[in-house]
């Protein structure tokens, strides 16, 4: 296939992903290996984070839209699947506990009991309207795609049509994220306020399957989603569509004068990546087990941008490397496994100092190695950055900088 030949990174990436997934599977507890179930879950979650990072790279690295809202779409995807998981699981428990009653429960009684179970913590027992489809897996799966997609479509249409760009657009997306998370924090938002949705690791009707096996299933599903997402992203950025996207990133006005409807391209890529983020979230949260509004807070979306920057924006594998590397290192540092450093007068505890280290490395990467970790691939292939006497590749704020470019 000429597509794969033109994009050699795609088969390499897919091959490595397959090897990785196989290795983890064989080393997992379920197959008698030494990797703990929780670590397999961490790796599965990391694959989901890599998928949302690929989406972020499409929208920021390729199109120059620094969105600080993609983790909101990620969270929304998680909430949508979480609603079904929680409903179906609670229903199963309620039905089995009511089965012993002398009078068989009516469907209404069951629904009421499920409602009381789920919403008891926020002092309510009625299902809000948004739970209308919660009993249907098919409908909630549609919503995983539709809710983030529609939100991105409406938000993007309003923002891009008014030609809001650069920092202003970033602030606008961040405001959207903050508003959404503050709304979800309210008890009457219909999604259990700051309690969030929990118990998501227990798949309804799959009680017999041990978590160790389940973790491997989710690992494979996440790897499949990442592989397909990567293929899709590579297809989108190869060829003319990718040319137009990079044109918009470097010099939006010029693209417009060529006759391309820039707003529609931005809307397309913004919505597509929101859907990708939603799917990633829907796979992430069943592995995490719990979702709450704090997950959607703007800081998460900022982290997303940091991952892509550290991995190297404008190259899809850079996003994957960044998300994988940073989130795994972060797990290590914050998991208490990193040894403290005793300076005599002060002990550096990494749990507290990790964010400082992350911030520092972000600053250093941006200043000294704008290509990020992905730049190591260029070193290996001896690709060089052009000498442009300090000139960036376009007048727009999001344009590639001199050191990010390839000769």
């Amino acid at each position: 296939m000429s597509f794969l030949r033109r994009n050699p990174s795609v088969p390499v990436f897919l091959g490595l992903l397959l090897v990785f997934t196989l290795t983890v599977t064989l080393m997992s507890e379920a197959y008698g290996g030494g990797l703990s179930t929780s670590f397999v879950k961490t790796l599965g979650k990391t694959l989901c984070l890599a998928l949302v990072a690929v989406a972020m790279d499409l929208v920021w690295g390729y199109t120059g839209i620094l969105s600080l809202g993609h983790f909101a779409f990620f969270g929304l995807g998680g909430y949508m699947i979480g609603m079904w998981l929680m409903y179906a699981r609670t229903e199963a428990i309620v039905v089995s506990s009511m089965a012993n009653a002398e009078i068989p429960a009516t469907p209404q009684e069951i629904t009421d009991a499920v409602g009381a179970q789920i919403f008891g913590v926020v002092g309510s027992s009625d299902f809000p309207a948004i739970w209308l489809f919660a009993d249907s897996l098919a409908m909630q799966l549609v919503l995983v795609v539709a809710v983030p997609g529609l939100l991105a479509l409406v938000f993007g249409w309003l923002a891009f049509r008014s030609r809001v760009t650069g920092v202003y657009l970033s602030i606008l997306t961040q405001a959207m994220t903050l508003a959404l998370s503050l709304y979800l924090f309210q008890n009457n938002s219909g999604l259990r306020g700051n309690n969030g949705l929990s118990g998501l690791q227990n798949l309804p009707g799959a009680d017999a399957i041990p978590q160790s096996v389940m973790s491997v299933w989710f690992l494979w599903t996440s790897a499949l989603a990442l592989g397909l997402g990567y293929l899709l992203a590579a297809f989108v950025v190869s060829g003319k569509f990718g040319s137009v996207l990079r044109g918009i990133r470097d010099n939006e006005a010029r693209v417009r004068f060529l006759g391309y409807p820039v707003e529609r391209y931005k809307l397309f890529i913004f919505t597509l990546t929101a859907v990708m983020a939603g799917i990633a979230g829907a796979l992430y949260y069943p592995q995490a087990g719990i979702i709450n509004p704090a997950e959607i807070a703007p800081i998460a979306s900022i982290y997303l941008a940091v991952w892509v920057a550290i991995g190297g924006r404008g190259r899809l594998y850079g996003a994957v490397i960044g998300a994988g590397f940073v989130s795994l290192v972060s797990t290590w540092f914050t998991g208490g496994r990193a040894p403290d450093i005793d300076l005599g007068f002060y002990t550096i505890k990494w749990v507290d100092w990790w964010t400082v280290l992350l911030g520092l490395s972000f600053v250093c990467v941006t200043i000294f190695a704008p290509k990020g970790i992905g730049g190591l691939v260029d070193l290996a292939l001896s690709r060089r950055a052009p000498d442009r006497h300090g000139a960036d590749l376009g007048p727009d704020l999001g344009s590639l900088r001199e050191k990010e470019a390839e000769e």
Partner: protein
Amino acid sequence: MTGALLEVSGVSVSFDGFRAINNLSFNIGPAELRAVIGPNGAGKTTFMDIVTGKTRPDEGRVLWGEKSISLLRMDEAAIARAGIGRKFQRPTVFEDQTVRDNLLMALKKDRGPLAVLFQRRNAADEARVEELAGQIGLVSELSRKSGELSHGQKQWLEIGMLLAQDPRLLLVDEPAAGMTPEEREHTTSLLVEAARTRAVVVVEHDMEFVRRLNCKVTVLHEGAVLAEGSLDHVTANQEVIEVYLGR
């Protein structure tokens, strides 16, 4: 006026009280080469901004084509698709992309996102790109990143992108700026050649370059047309000499 491709009439625009364009009227036919000259601040670039949709005039009409469609309600992209191509004063090409990709992007094809997503390279497009590269003398540079080209080559690439768009009207802002004499020669012939089949408006400072174009000249001053006619005719005009040539 019948037969005009572009008809600008009674257009005015002011920025913060400064009247950049003052009751300007301008017509050009379907296959005509026209040079627009004028001192700095005469409104040459603003005129182009209005025609290409970058600036909205306060009053006046801008009509396009046989059906006399108003361009004032269209955005930049729609105007470009209607057949108006623009070359900027400073060469603006997509520096991170190869010369080939730049030309492919400019080729006249469906511009909608969904259509473009499934447009893949084909032999016809490649051949057209090769042909254009031949015209602008960049065949050997096709696979190079356009950011590496010399200033003059970038100017040509941009002219090539304009030709690839196959517009009915080309608006060219100072095409010869920063070019060597030989490069100017080449640029002149490209523009004269293009004007055989389409309308070309060249904004230029350099009188020598305008003389070589050998076409009708419109002199702008303070946002309005001061004189129009052959170069010899306008350079003989006393007003023109006072505001522009005499300085």
